[in-house]
């Protein structure tokens, strides 16, 4: 998986974005759109509509506020923070516990998916379902850690909290997941 930190954002692109260059924005969007959309999609139980809204909001905010981006911070950290804020704001607006629709979950099973093994696919479905039932704070922490492969330090910057809080949220997320996976496993 390619992570944000593996990519290099040239200062020239950022500079062009600052001066309002629409092509530079498009280049930036193309680099990160799938990343932002995927986090939002997994965060919102596979709801493509909400994920699309979040992606739009994140990039609009990015484009509008690119002048505030300080070059000394890593661009990916700033972007992750925008994604986290957008997801958490939207989670507050949406009713919790939305049903996990199979139709939505099929979204994840891309035709070129590597999950050929049936049992593994079932497990993947269970994991996605379990993650989607986590409280938003723990859900975003688990997604950033495992789906995005961020370090504790990167997470603490994206979530704007201490590393101790990151560890605590992950730990509590794990405990809830253990319960959920047990119950999901027992219903199969």
């Amino acid at each position, binding site marked *: 998986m390619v992570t944000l930190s593996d990519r290099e954002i040239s200062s020239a692109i950022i500079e062009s974005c600052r001066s309002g260059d629409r092509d530079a924005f498009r280049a930036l969007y193309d680099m990160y759109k799938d990343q932002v959309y995927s986090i939002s999609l997994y965060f919102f139980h596979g709801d493509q509509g909400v994920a699309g809204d979040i992606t739009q909001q994140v990039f609009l905010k990015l484009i509008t506020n690119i002048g505030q981006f300080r070059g000394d911070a890593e661009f990916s950290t700033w972007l992750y923070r925008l994604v986290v804020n957008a997801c958490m704001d939207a989670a507050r607006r949406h009713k919790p516990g939305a049903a996990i629709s199979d139709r939505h979950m099929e979204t994840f099973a891309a035709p070129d998916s590597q999950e050929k093994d049936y049992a593994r696919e079932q497990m993947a479905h269970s994991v996605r379902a379990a993650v989607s039932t986590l409280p938003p704070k723990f859900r975003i922490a688990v997604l950033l850690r495992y789906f995005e492969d961020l370090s504790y330090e990167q997470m603490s*910057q994206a979530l704007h909290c*201490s590393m101790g809080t990151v560890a605590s949220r992950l730990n509590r997320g794990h405990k809830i997941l253990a319960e959920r996976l047990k119950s999901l496993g027992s219903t199969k």
Partner: protein
Amino acid sequence: MNRNEAEQVKFGMAILTHLPKAKAPEAIWASIEAALTSRDPSRDQRERLNKSAIHQWRWAFAGMAALALFAVTFFSVEYWRAHPLGTRWEVVRIDGSPAVGARHFHDAAKIAAGEWMETDSSSRAGIKIGDIGSVEVEPNTRLRVVTAKPGEHRLALARGEIRAKISAPPRLFFVDTASGTAIDLGCEYALSTDEDGSGLLSVTKGWVSFQWQGLESLVPAGASCRTRPHLGPGVPYFDDAPDALKQALEDVDLKRPGFEKSGNNSLNIILAAARVRDTLTLWHLLSRVDVSDRARIYDRIAALTPVPAGVSREQALKLDPGTLNHWKEELAWTW
């Protein structure tokens, strides 16, 4: 969480790591463009602006700009006169008669970048570190505020002891000492030092990174790390580690003659006494010993806790930064 549940979560998280990325629908960009266009007049629209109208207002704009420039300059000068070298932090007396510069204070005072604070044997004080936390200054301490900006809060501890309580993202609070810099990673800790840099860092919550000339010790809650002049941070250890381990670490930190030799007795003691959570100490030792001892340390860690996927013996012994970092993050579950 029992062992089975932990395994199940671990397996589940491994699956999460390999979930595919979804493709963002193209329609999203169209909606972004539409929103941008509605917010910002297009170039065509701007070109349609009446040039003569601009002419009429040119002098008015120039006058307003000059006025604004004057106001900004005036208020900036006044602000910097009132707040030299950045923000001033509040300080409060806890005991005795602490001093900021030459002024002793009895209730509260302010301290700015460049100013010293000093406590005598019967004084204690508290400093409010911007809006990210606080520091208690223990008796017989002398420190200076180096930087007091929202993006960097930095103290220089010349001697004595401080207790820091910081609640902020990592790398916003720093304490310089003669033997290195303590970098807050979101935590609570006590740091003491002599004027020559001999001291002790003890962390009670979160993590602290102590750095000196490229050498780094990561100290989690419940652990400590000695600091020494010209040697920087020692190898961190848990406060509840076996005494034999802590004693043997002195040899490592002081680089006593014979330690570098392969198969030395201090390392034998450390390896024999180490518990699972002492992999904190062993992981740090990896990069501070020669290759043959490194292999012994690797084997000991592997015997204490399974080596995670993505960590190979070869890469670990080569001190590959990515491998060591990944291993540390996995080991950290036991710290």
